[in-house]
């Protein structure tokens, strides 16, 4: 998992509540063998016409937002089915941070597992950030996880709260496997002991 320290980038405004996982990645794209490559189907129903052509009005189709790394949205982002494909699709598109008043639990969890930072901020502040985001490439946001602040284009710093353990994991790029690998010395000595006692378990 890629560590998340500081991110400065374009934020895409998605001024809607209840953006569910089926909007993020429709069910028809789930029969896959990969978790990469889903970025091309991110928000597919909002982003593309039935013939596959782009809907020019959709924010991620506008030139200023094609390389967005941050999303600003409203309440209950990521609700609906528990599919882990939702964070996979966001990440594959290049989104590393979503800011909203609140998130659906499973999505919130799955985001951290995949190196995406979900930030909860009050609705009024999200509205301000939404206005900033509307300025496109002229107004980049900075998310500083080290100091737990979002920096607006005008320099104003907005502090946010985050579970210290999750912050630690993101800062160090530790997914579940990464955390377990911190126990590598214990695993190694277990294997050495077991190999001596039950050598038939080792080819």
């Amino acid at each position, binding site marked *: 998992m890629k560590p998340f320290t500081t991110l400065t980038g374009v934020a895409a405004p998605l001024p809607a509540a209840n953006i569910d996982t089926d909007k993020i990645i429709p069910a028809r794209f789930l029969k896959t*063998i*990969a978790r990469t490559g889903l970025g091309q189907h991110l928000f597919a129903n909002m982003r593309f016409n039935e013939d596959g052509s782009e809907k020019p009005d959709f924010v991620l189709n506008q030139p200023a937002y094609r390389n967005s790394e941050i999303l600003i949205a409203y309440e209950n982002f990521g609700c609906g089915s528990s599919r882990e494909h939702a964070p996979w699709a966001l990440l594959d598109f290049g989104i590393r941070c979503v800011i909203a008043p609140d998130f659906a639990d499973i999505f919130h969890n799955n985001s951290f597992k995949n190196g995406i930072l979900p930030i909860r901020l009050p609705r009024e502040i999200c509205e301000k950030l939404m206005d900033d985001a509307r300025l496109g490439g002229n107004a980049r946001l900075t998310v500083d996880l080290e100091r737990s602040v979002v920096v607006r284009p005008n320099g104003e710093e907005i502090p946010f709260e985050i579970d210290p353990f999750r912050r630690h994991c993101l800062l160090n790029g530790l997914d*579940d496997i990464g955390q377990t*690998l911190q*126990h590598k010395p*214990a695993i190694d000595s277990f294997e050495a002991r077991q190999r001596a006692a039950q050598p*038939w378990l080792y080819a």
Partner: protein
Amino acid sequence: MSAEKPRTLFDKIWAHHVVDTLPDGTALLYIDRHLVHEVTSPQAFEGLRVAGRPVHRPDATMAVIDHNIATDETRRTGILDPESRLQVETLEHNVVEFGVPFIPLLDARQGIVHVIGPEQGLSLPGMTIVCGDSHTSTHGAMGALAFGIGTSEVEHVLATQTLLQKPAKNMRVTVDGQLPLGCTAKDIVLAIIGKIGTAGGTGHVIEFAGEAIRALDMAGRMTVCNMSIEAGARAGMVAPDQTTFDYVKGRPFAPKGEAFDRAVAWWSTLPSDPGAHFDKEVFLRAEDIVPMVTWGTSPEDVAPITASVPDPAAAVDETRRAQLQRMVEYMGLTPGQKLTDLKVDVVFIGSCTNSRIEDMRAAAAIAKGRHVAEGVRAMVVPGSGLVKLQAEQEGLDRVFLDAGFEWREAGCSMCLGMNPDKLTPGQRSASTSNRNFEGRQGPGGRTHLLSPAMAAAAALAGHLADVRDWQPVGSA
């Protein structure tokens, strides 16, 4: 020093595999054997690739293809369904890239992952065994701790050879006495599930014990452990004994020579100590068991073959009444109808529950010299290529073919509607598999679970039948 506290088989295997304990009591548990198949592994391998991680211990891993494949000659000419084909090709590619040992589709050893593990000696007593499939509990018959995991855990095991696990509770199901004529391991486990229900084992690891379990051969023990998951348990296990050691000896991946003797010495220390504490205990008398068959859409809705379809109106509880009503409708039943009056369209003998050579023999003994009833499609699907070869050497294929059964290639087949072997809507099947959920064998399909001998009897009779009325031709 005070005497050590008596421990269960589960406690001992668990304690042997704890690498580290986290502050909240979660254990980092070492995994000795990881079995991999095509359906639940693609994203796990991809995760490794993206993170640049290798497989920690390829020598502790084995991959095989079983769920998605056809069980007729078309498996040689390529898989028709594009998604199934892609999953199979992806596994074939991943095992090369990550250096994981692999049994290819057209290898004689190919088969259902839970059949080939014990058959190859990959699953041994005292091991921790995982696979991305819930019926991994099967391998507990070896005297191992074996359980199913999800795709993210598959990746975790590939990368670290460990899992984060909270300890389970101990439960013991004791079956004493001797099984009556016509009853098998399948009838034991169906009777257990009928008694304790599909949530009876929740949060527990079940140890199956008692005279009737000890008397089972390894195939029978595997059948019982296989369905512990249908009783809600995390895993099922049987203490290793001489039957186990005799089974293991000489298998390709089993220890040999002096190492085997050392292994047996260690395995012999594993059975539960006298006085060990079980959080839950259940007792059954083998003499009370009769040939069983499920009538509903949950494995706990099981009854003796001599019984009739229950009347939902008789249920006291309203939720249960509605549930029974729904089942009776879905299954196309009439309350009060005798189970032996239910005509079957398809008979399926196979799956990781009942596709070993002993199961083939049991079914063939009933089928020999008789013929499948008109209008019934009966298929026999051996659990592995080696089971198939063995059966052919014993002439069982001829017995089945002469009796009008299909004799097919190894795989999961009609156990689940994921490959070309499926029920069509409304079809009724007598099946030796483990799940009778709505649509499990194909959309709209109606499944009755039973033993291989009972399945053979149903094929011959054309309806669910009491195997005791169909004893082998020529026997007294």
